[in-house]
C-alpha cells in the first residue's frame, strides 16, 4: 500500500488513455493498493474475489445438500419422523433473527457508502448481536437435542422402526447446522474486525470494500440458512 500523499509515477506514462481517465496528477488515496489504477477498480477486484470465494463455498455446502437430497429420497418416512422432533418455533425464530441481521448488515454497508460513521457502528453492533442471538438459540437447540438423545451414537434413542435412518437425518442435521454455525462464528469475528476498522476511521465513502465484502459473506451465510430451515424443520409438518 502506498503511504498517504505518494504520487503515482511511471507505469501510466506509457498509456495516454489512462492518463486522462485516471487523474494522473491527483494524489493517490491512502487505501489504494499500488497494483490498482483507482479505487473503483480496487473495489471491483475485491467484490469479484469475494464472489469467487463464495462460489467455492456454494459447492462446499452443495455436497452436503446433495447427500441430504439422496438420503431423504431413500428414507422419506424416517426423515419426516425425525424432522418432527426438531423445535419448529425455535427454527422459525432463528430464521427471522438471521434475516433481520442481513437487513442490519445491508444498512451498515449503506451507512459506510454514505459516510455515516455513527450509523455504521450501530448497525455493525446490531448485526453482531443478532448473530450472537442466533448462535445462542442454536446452542439451546443443540442442548435439547442432546438431552432428548437425538445425537447419533451409542446414546441415540428413536422409535425402533426408523432407528437407523433417523440417525442419518440427525447426523446431517448436526453436520449441516454445525458447519453453518462455524461460518456464523467466523462471521462474528469478521464483524469484530470491521467494527474496529470503522471505529478507527479507516472506512469512508471512497473506501468501504471491507464492509461491502464482509457483508457479502454475511448474506451468503444467511442464504445457506434460508435453504437449511425448510429442508430440516419443515418436512411433512402436516402429517
Amino acid at each position: 500500500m502506498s503511504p498517504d500523499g505518494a504520487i503515482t509515477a511511471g507505469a501510466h506514462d506509457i498509456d495516454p488513455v489512462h492518463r486522462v481517465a485516471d487523474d494522473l496528477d491527483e494524489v493517490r488515496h491512502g487505501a489504494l493498493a499500488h497494483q490498482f489504477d483507482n479505487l473503483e477498480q480496487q473495489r471491483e477486484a475485491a467484490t469479484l474475489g469475494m464472489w469467487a470465494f463464495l462460489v467455492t463455498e456454494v459447492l462446499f455446502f452443495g455436497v452436503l445438500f446433495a447427500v441430504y437430497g439422496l438420503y431423504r429420497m431413500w428414507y422419506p418416512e424416517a426423515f419426516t419422523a425425525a424432522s418432527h422432533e426438531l423445535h419448529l418455533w425455535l427454527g422459525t425464530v432463528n430464521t427471522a433473527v438471521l434475516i433481520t441481521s442481513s437487513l442490519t448488515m445491508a444498512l451498515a454497508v449503506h451507512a459506510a457508502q454514505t459516510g455515516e460513521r455513527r450509523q455504521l457502528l450501530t448497525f455493525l453492533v446490531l448485526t453482531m448481536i443478532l448473530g450472537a442471538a442466533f448462535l445462542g438459540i442454536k446452542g439451546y437447540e443443540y442442548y435439547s437435542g442432546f438431552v432428548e438423545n437425538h445425537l447419533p451414537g451409542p446414546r441415540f434413542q428413536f422409535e425402533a422402526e426408523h432407528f437407523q435412518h433417523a440417525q442419518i437425518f440427525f447426523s446431517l442435521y448436526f453436520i449441516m447446522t454445525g458447519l453453518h454455525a462455524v461460518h456464523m462464528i467466523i462471521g462474528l469475528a469478521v464483524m469484530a474486525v470491521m467494527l474496529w476498522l470503522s471505529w478507527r476511521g479507516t472506512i469512508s465513502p471512497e473506501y468501504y470494500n471491507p464492509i461491502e465484502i464482509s457483508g457479502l459473506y454475511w448474506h451468503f451465510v444467511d442464504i445457506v440458512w434460508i435453504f437449511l430451515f425448510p429442508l430440516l424443520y419443515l418436512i411433512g409438518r402436516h402429517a
Partner: protein
Amino acid sequence: MSEHVLPKRVYYTIFAVLMLSTYLTVQMAFIDLGRFNTVAALAIAIFKATLVVLFFMHVKYSSRLTWAVVLSGVFWLGILLVLTMSDYLTRPWLTFG
C-alpha cells in the same frame, strides 16, 4: 465513484418480503400438498435467496463479470446435483442377473 447507493427503503422492502415468505413457507408446510410441499418449500427458498443476492448483495447493480461469477456458482452447483442424482437415482434401473 460510480457505485450505486440504494435508497434505504429498498432494503426495508426486501426485508418485509423475506419475512413474509418465511411466514408463508411455515404455513404451507402444514397444508398437505403431497409431493408439492417440497417443491413449494424449495421454490420459496430459491425466491428468498435470489432477493438476497440481487439486492442485499448488490448483484443487480454489479458488473457483468460479477454476474458471470455468480451464475457460474449456480451452474457448478447444478452440475454437482444433477450428475450426482442422475447416477444414484438411475442405479435401480439396471438389474443384472
